[in-house]
């Protein structure tokens, strides 16, 4: 099942990337997608069925908007830190707990954290993410967990679990 899903995804990607519908181009695309699906299929998501439910895509679109907004806001903040003459940074590595179970959800949360400026995921061990943070604003684990991952976690739970 997941081999078929990966094949379809790779083929759509090929069509968008080459952007013409000659018969020769389509044949090359099918061969390339088949090879991709056979080689990398075992690394793909195990359970494909939940990703056919439409409400997940609805949440995905809302999440994209929230993520873009957070990203822009935090980007201006990092630009401010960089341009400030005294550079008021307080970097450190903090441990953040998360309540996600599946691998794909964990990966997406780690990617989201890395993409919002000011935080980089260093490692994931079981239920804990280690995050390098450019400005450690509080010492309380509850508070910074909320600040770093809380705003994304509930959406990712709805989309990927």
């Amino acid at each position, binding site marked *: 099942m997941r081999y078929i899903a990966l094949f379809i995804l790779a083929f759509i*990607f090929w069509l*968008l*990337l080459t*952007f013409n519908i000659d018969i020769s181009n389509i044949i090359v695309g099918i061969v390339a997608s088949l090879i991709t699906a056979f080689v990398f299929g075992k690394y793909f998501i195990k359970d494909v069925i939940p990703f056919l439910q439409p409400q997940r895509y609805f949440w995905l679109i809302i999440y994209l908007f929230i993520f873009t907004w957070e*990203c*822009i806001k935090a*980007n201006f903040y*990092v*630009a401010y*830190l*960089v*341009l400030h003459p005294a*550079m008021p*940074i*307080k*970097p*450190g*590595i*903090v*441990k953040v707990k998360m309540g996600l179970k599946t691998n794909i959800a964990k990966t997406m949360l*780690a*990617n989201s954290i*890395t*993409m*919002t*400026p*000011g935080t*980089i*995921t*260093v*490692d994931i*061990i079981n239920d804990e993410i*280690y995050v*390098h943070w*450019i400005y*450690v604003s509080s010492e309380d684990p509850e508070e910074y967990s909320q600040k770093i991952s809380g705003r994304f976690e509930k959406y990712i739970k709805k989309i990927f679990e």
Partner: protein
Amino acid sequence: MEIIGFIFICIGILFNFFGCIGLTRLPDVYNRLQSATKCVTLGTCSILIGVFFHFGFTEAGIKAIIAIPLLFFSATVAAHALVKGAYIFGVKLGDKSVKDDYKDVTKS
């Protein structure tokens, strides 16, 4: 449409510039990666969106939009790999650092 495209491209170049300033000003590897990966990724995404507005739904415009998720995933994974690699290799955190929870995990 062309004007919107140019505005996006200008914002992108500005953020790339901030990212480069951060790369030279910030103190250690980890902080430099912060600005190098993020300001630069957002800046480049913004340039690509500007290219899409400039060309519309033609070949170049669609390709610019497809490049955004590719750039996004490769940049995040590369940043993560570089940070973890630097830590395991033994690069110290900078003098200004206030907290290091990861130390206990790597020792044991």
